[in-house]
């Protein structure tokens, strides 16, 4: 029989449990859809692109190939995206500190599977789900070893962030191609 001082105790216990759950600070997905967030990201991305352009201009001619520049753009875009997440998600932290680590082999990354008999509960998940969950974990940065519930949370945030990244980059690409192609953006009707 639990000791209770009327409602206060059980409410406190529920409150504690609620707080414990909320302490995980589920990232809200709404922010990735807001225009403000996208604009902030776009301007940060443009600054990063300028840095890439400057560094590729001063670097060796062989380094400034299309492919390496494109990869530099991709990495800058990902880093800016991870920064926008403000460290609240695993994938963003992994991107921010993992860009150099990825090239070195991490000692833990080689372990294929958790050892069988100790994790009897994990086998309650059908193996087909487990395989797919593992594939998913490999796609999201920093989420290889995550259990399914946390993985799905990271995936939700990651997908929302990626969609914003695509939208922002499309806008910038459109703006750049329009500006580059047209004689002057102010004159839409007829030449001078």
């Amino acid at each position: 029989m639990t000791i209770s001082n009327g409602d206060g105790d059980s409410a406190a216990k529920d409150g504690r449990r609620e707080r414990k759950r909320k302490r995980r600070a589920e990232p809200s997905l709404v922010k990735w859809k807001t225009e403000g967030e996208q604009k902030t990201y776009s301007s940060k991305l443009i600054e990063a692109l300028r840095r890439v352009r400057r560094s590729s201009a001063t670097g060796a001619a062989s380094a400034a190939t299309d492919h390496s520049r494109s990869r530099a753009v991709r990495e800058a875009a990902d880093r800016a995206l991870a920064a926008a997440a403000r460290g609240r998600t695993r994938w963003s932290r992994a991107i921010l500190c993992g860009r150099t680590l990825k090239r070195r082999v991490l000692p833990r990354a080689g372990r294929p599977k958790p050892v069988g008999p100790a994790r009897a509960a994990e086998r309650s998940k059908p193996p087909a789900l487990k395989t797919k969950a593992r594939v998913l974990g490999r796609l999201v940065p920093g989420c290889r070893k995550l259990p399914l519930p946390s993985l799905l949370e990271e995936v939700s945030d990651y997908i929302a962030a990626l969609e914003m990244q695509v939208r922002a980059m499309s806008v910038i690409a459109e703006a750049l191609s329009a500006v580059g192609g047209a004689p002057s953006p102010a004159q839409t009707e007829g030449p001078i």
Partner: protein
Amino acid sequence: MSGRGSRITDEEINELVSKLQSLLPESRRRNTGRVSASKLLKETCSYIKSLHREVDDLSDRLSGLMVTMDSNSPQAEIIRSLLRS
């Protein structure tokens, strides 16, 4: 959920997976009752891969267009003002 990490019920999985369903564009269109968890995970993987490809394509495009940023810095200002509006 550090304490409960090893005991995940099927129900919880289904709950999480249905939450995932609302994220995928195709599922939003289809909006049928229940898709199998396995199928959803697979669709999620494909969706993320296609998003990655889009970002790669956009990076290619941007790295080519960046050269125009090079010669005219007023263009960068134009872009900024476009974004601000």
